[in-house]
C-alpha cells in the first residue's frame, strides 16, 4: 500500500483555482484566537522509516517539512511562490563562485535542535556525510556532484567528503565544492534529504526513532501500526516566516491503519481532520454533494503514463507505439480517475504549468495544443503499417486505487487495435521495481511520476535520459529503456545551460519535450489533481506546490 507514497515524493499544484497569489496570512489577533488544539490526520498505512535522510515518500515529506530544516527550503507559501527556494538555516542564498562550482553558506546563529543543542557548521558537514552513510536513495543520483562523493558511495562507512563540504567554525560558514556546476543544487538541498541533523545522530537508518527537529514541531512517538504523534518543539523560535513559520495547533496526531472508505466517514463525522489517501471513486458523488465546502482541489505536477519498452516487440516498432497513442481515449482514463474535475488529459512528457511546459498534443483528432478525441482511423492505419497485429502483449499494473481499472481500459484499447492483450495486476509494492528490470521483459505498464522539485530535467532527464537506463537492474527508472544518443546529448548540454541561463534552458526543454513526445516512448494519459477532504472545523487550508497541505498553517479552532 505504499507505492503511491514512494511515488508522490512531492506532489505539487498550480495556483489554487481562486487566484490566491500569496498565503492569506491572518492578522495577529486572529492568529492568537486560532492557536491550540489537536490536528488529527489519518492514513491507511505508515510510510516506512522516519529518518528524513532516508524516507522518500510524499506522505512523510509533508511531515518533515514542518519538523526539519535544510540550509535552504522551499518557501512555505501558496501558488507559484511555493516553488521558490528561500534561505532557511542559512542567512541567505549564496552567489555561485568559481563558475557555479563553489557555494559558501553562512549559518544563522541561535537556532537550536529539539535536544537543546545549537546548530553548528559541524552538524551540517556531518549531515552530508550521513547522507552517504545511510545509503540515501539519491546519494548516487543527486549528491554525487559534491567533491568526494564517489569515495563515499564506494565505502559509505568511511565517508568524509573531504574537500567537498568544509566547515569554518569561526566564520560560521560551510563551503560546498562541486565537481561540475549544478543548476538544481539548491533544490536538492531544499528537500528533506538536505535536513540538518545533530552531528551525533547515529550513522544508520533511524527506523522508527525520530530525529532531532529544528522546526516548530517534533515527532514524540511513532508506531507504524498505530500512530505518530507530533508536539511543539520547545526550542523553536520563528526566524523566517517564509522558510519555517510557527504553527497554530499544539499537537498533531497521525493515525494509521484505517481504510480510505472509513477515513472519509470519519472526516464526515468530524472524528478526523484530514486524510492522506485518495478517496475511493465511488464515494466522490456523495462527498461532492454533501460536503462541497470541505473539498479542496489543487493541480499537481505529475503524470499518469504507460511506458512502452522500446527494445522488445511489439513496441520496438514506432508505428505500433504511435497507434496506441492515437487510439487511447484520454477522456475515458480521466473518467475512471474521477472525472474532468480531478484530472486533465495530457499527451506530452511534462505536466501543465511546469517549468519548460509548452502545450503540445500530436495524438488527437485535430492535432495541436490540446487533446480532444482519439483518432481511431489513423491508429488503425498505423497499426496496419506496423505489422504487429496479433502480437501478444501483457500490461503490468499495480493494485492501487484506480490503476487496475485504467490498465483494464488500456488492455481494451490494445485489443481493439488488434493486439492480443492481457492484464497482470501485481502488488504495488513490487510492481514499480518489477517494471524497471529488463530481465522481466515487461512490454507495457502503468506508472506515475510526481516531481521531486520544479525542474524539467526531473521528468526529461530522469525518465528518458540514457543515464537512467540500467539493463538488468531493479533500479532503472527509464522504464521504456529509451536512449536516443542525439536527444541525450542535447539534454546533457541543456543541463549545463540551465546553470547560467534558466530561461534559454526552459525554451530548450520545451523543444526536447516535444521531440520526445514525437518519439512516443509512452502513452501519456493525464495529469491528476490533488483532492484534499478536510473536516468542517479545519481552517486556513494552505496548499504548497511542493508539499501540499502545510500542517503548521492550518488551524482547528
Amino acid at each position: 500500500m505504499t507505492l503511491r507514497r514512494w511515488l508522490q515524493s512531492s506532489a505539487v499544484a498550480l495556483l489554487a483555482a481562486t487566484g490566491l497569489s500569496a498565503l492569506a496570512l491572518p492578522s495577529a489577533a486572529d492568529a492568537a484566537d486560532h492557536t491550540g488544539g489537536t490536528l488529527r490526520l489519518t492514513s491507511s498505512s505508515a510510510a516506512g522509516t522516519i529518518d528524513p535522510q532516508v524516507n522518500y515518500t510524499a506522505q512523510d515529506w509533508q511531515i518533515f517539512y514542518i519538523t526539519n530544516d535544510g540550509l535552504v527550503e522551499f518557501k512555505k507559501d501558496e501558488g507559484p511562490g511555493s516553488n521558490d527556494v528561500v534561505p532557511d538555516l542559512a542567512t541567505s542564498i549564496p552567489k555561485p563562485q568559481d563558475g557555479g562550482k563553489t557555494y559558501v553558506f553562512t549559518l544563522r546563529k541561535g537556532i537550536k535542535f529539539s535536544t537543546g543543542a545549537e546548530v553548528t557548521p559541524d552538524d551540517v558537514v556531518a549531515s552530508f556525510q550521513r547522507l552517504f552513510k545511510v545509503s540515501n536513495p539519491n546519494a548516487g543520483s543527486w549528491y554525487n556532484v559534491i567533491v568526494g562523493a564517489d569515495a563515499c558511495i564506494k565505502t559509505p562507512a568511511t565517508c568524509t567528503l573531504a574537500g567537498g563540504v568544509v566547515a569554518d567554525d569561526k566564520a560560521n560558514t560551510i563551503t560546498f565544492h562541486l565537481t561540475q556546476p549544478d543548476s538544481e543544487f539548491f533544490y536538492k538541498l531544499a528537500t528533506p534529504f538536505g535536513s540538518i541533523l545533530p552531528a551525533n545522530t547515529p550513522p544508520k537508518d533511524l527506523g522508527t526513532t525520530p530525529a532531532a527537529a529544528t522546526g516548530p514541531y517534533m515527532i514524540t512517538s511513532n508506531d507504524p501500526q498505530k500512530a505518530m504523534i507530533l508536539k511543539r518543539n520547545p526550542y523553536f523560535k520563528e526566524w523566517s516566516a517564509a522558510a519555517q513559520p510557527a504553527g497554530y495547533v499544539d499537537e498533531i496526531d497521525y493515525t494509521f491503519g484505517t481504510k480510505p472508505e472509513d477515513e472519509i466517514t470519519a472526516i464526515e463525522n468530524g472524528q478526523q481532520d484530514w486524510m492522506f489517501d485518495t478517496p475511493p471513486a465511488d464515494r466522490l458523488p456523495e462527498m461532492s454533494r454533501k460536503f462541497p465546502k470541505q473539498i479542496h482541489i489543487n493541480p499537481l505536477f505529475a503524470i499518469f503514463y504507460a511506458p512502452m519498452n522500446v527494445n522488445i516487440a511489439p513496441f520496438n516498432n514506432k508505428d505500433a507505439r504511435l497507434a496506441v497513442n492515437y487510439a487511447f481515449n484520454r477522456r475515458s482514463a480521466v473518467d475512471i480517475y474521477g472525472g474532468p474535475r480531478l484530472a486533465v488529459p495530457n499527451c506530452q512528457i511534462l505536466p501543465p504549468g511546469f517549468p519548460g511546459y509548452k502545450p503540445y498534443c500530436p495524438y488527437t483528432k485535430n492535432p495541436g495544443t490540446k487533446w480532444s478525441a482519439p483518432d481511431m482511423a489513423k491508429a488503425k492505419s498505423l497499426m496496419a503499417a506496423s505489422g504487429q497485429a496479433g502480437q501478444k502483449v501483457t500490461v503490468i499494473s499495480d493494485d492501487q486505487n484506480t490503476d487496475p481499472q485504467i490498465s483494464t481500459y488500456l488492455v481494451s484499447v490494445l485489443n481493439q487495435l488488434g493486439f492480443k492483450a492481457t492484464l497482470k495486476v501485481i502488488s504495488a509494492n513490487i510492481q514499480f521495481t518489477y517494471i524497471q528490470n529488463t530481465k522481466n521483459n515487461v512490454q507495457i505498464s502503468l506508472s506515475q511520476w510526481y516531481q521531486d522539485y520544479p525542474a524539467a530535467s526531473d521528468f526529461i532527464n530522469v525518465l528518458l535520459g540514457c543515464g537512467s537506463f540500467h539493463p538488468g537492474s531493479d533500479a532503472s527508472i527509464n522504464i521504456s529503456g529509451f536512449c536516443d544518443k542525439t536527444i541525450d546529448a542535447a539534454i546533457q548540454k541543456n543541463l549545463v545551460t540551465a546553470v547560467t541561463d534558466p530561461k534559454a534552458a526552459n525554451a530548450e526543454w520545451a523543444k526536447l519535450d516535444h521531440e520526445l513526445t514525437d518519439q512516443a516512448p509512452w502513452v501519456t494519459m493525464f495529469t491528476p489533481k490533488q483532492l484534499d477532504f478536510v473536516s468542517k472545523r479545519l481552517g486556513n487550508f494552505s496548499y504548497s506546490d511542493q508539499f501540499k497541505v502545510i500542517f503548521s498553517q492550518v488551524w482547528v479552532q
Partner: protein
Amino acid sequence: MSDSVIDTPTPADLSGGGMGEPGEAMAAARTRATEGPWRAGLRKLMRDRTAMGAVVVLILIILACVAAPWYAQHVSQSDPFQSNLDGQITIGKNTLDIMQADTGGLGLGVTPIGPTWRGQYFLGADDQGRDVMARMLYGGRNSLIISFASTVICLVLAALVGTVAGFLGGWVDTILARLLDVLWAFPIYLLAISLSIVLISKGLQIGPINIPSNSLLIPIAIIGVVYVPYVARPIRGQVLSLARSDFVLAARCLGVPSSRILFRDILPNVTTTIIVFAPLMMALNMLTESALSFLSIGVQPPSASWGTIIQDGEDLLYTQPMVAIAPGLAIIVTVLALNFLGDGVRDAFDPRAKLRVGKG
C-alpha cells in the same frame, strides 16, 4: 468462507476414516457383496429428491454459463471483455450514458449505469462500462471450471498419495505422512496467497511447459494442491486399516499378490470415499476460488470469475451494489446445490461417513 474455506479443516471433520472408525470401510465392503456399490448407490441417489433438485439447479447454471457467448451477442449486445466507457444505450425514448458523470455538488466522480432490468445491462454496468450480467455468465464458466478441475486434481493426488502411503507403509509412508502434516498445519489461506503471489507475478515453468501467469491452470493447481491433505489423510487411514484388516491378511496368507489386493479390495473402497468427497470438495473449492479472486490473486482480469466480479463490485458498493451482490448470490446458489448433492451422495454411497467439508 474465509474463515472457513480457507482455514483449516480438521481431522475430525473430514475423517472418512483418518481418525474415524476402521469399521466404516468394512461397512462399505460389505454392501459390495450383494450388489455393485455403484449401482446401489446410484439408485439410491436417484430416489433422493433433494439431491435430484440440486442436480437440476446445477445443470441449469451450467447451461446458462455455456450460453454466455449467445447471451453476450444477442441479449446484452456487447463484448463483456471490452471497456465501453464512452458508450450509450437507448431505453425507451431516452438515450443514456453508460458511465454517468455526477452533476450534483462539485461534479466529482463518474458512476456506471445501474440495473435496467432489460436485455441490455440487465444488472447494470461495472466500472469499465461492461454488462455485468454477461460477465457473470462468462465468470461462472471460470468459477465452475476452476472448482471442478481443482477438485479432480485434488482427489486424484489425494487418492494417489493416500493409497501409496497407506498401502506401502514403511519409509515411504513416513515421508508422505510428514509432508502431509506440513501441508496440513500450513494455514490454508496463507499457502494459497503466497503461492498465488509468486505464480501470478511469474507464471510457472516446468521444463518445456510454460504456463503463463494469467492462465486458469494456476488457480486450479493452487486450489487443487492446498486441499490434498484433507482428503489424503482420511484415505491413508482407510487404506491403512484395510491393509491390516482380517480379510486382507487372510488373502495375503493365501498368497494373493499385492497388486490384486490393491485393485480388488482397496481401490474400490478408496473410490467410494472419493465419490463422496467430490461434490463437497467442489463446493469448498468454489468458495476458495472466490476468496482468492476477491483478494485479487485468483483469476486475472480481463477474465472474470464470480469472485473477481465481487471484487470489482467492492469499488462500487456505495453507488451500484448490485455488481457485488449478484455474483455473491450466484456463488451461494451453486455452492448450496453442490452441498445438497454432496449430502445425497454421502447418504447413498457411504451413509456412515462423517464428512464435514463445509468447514474447510
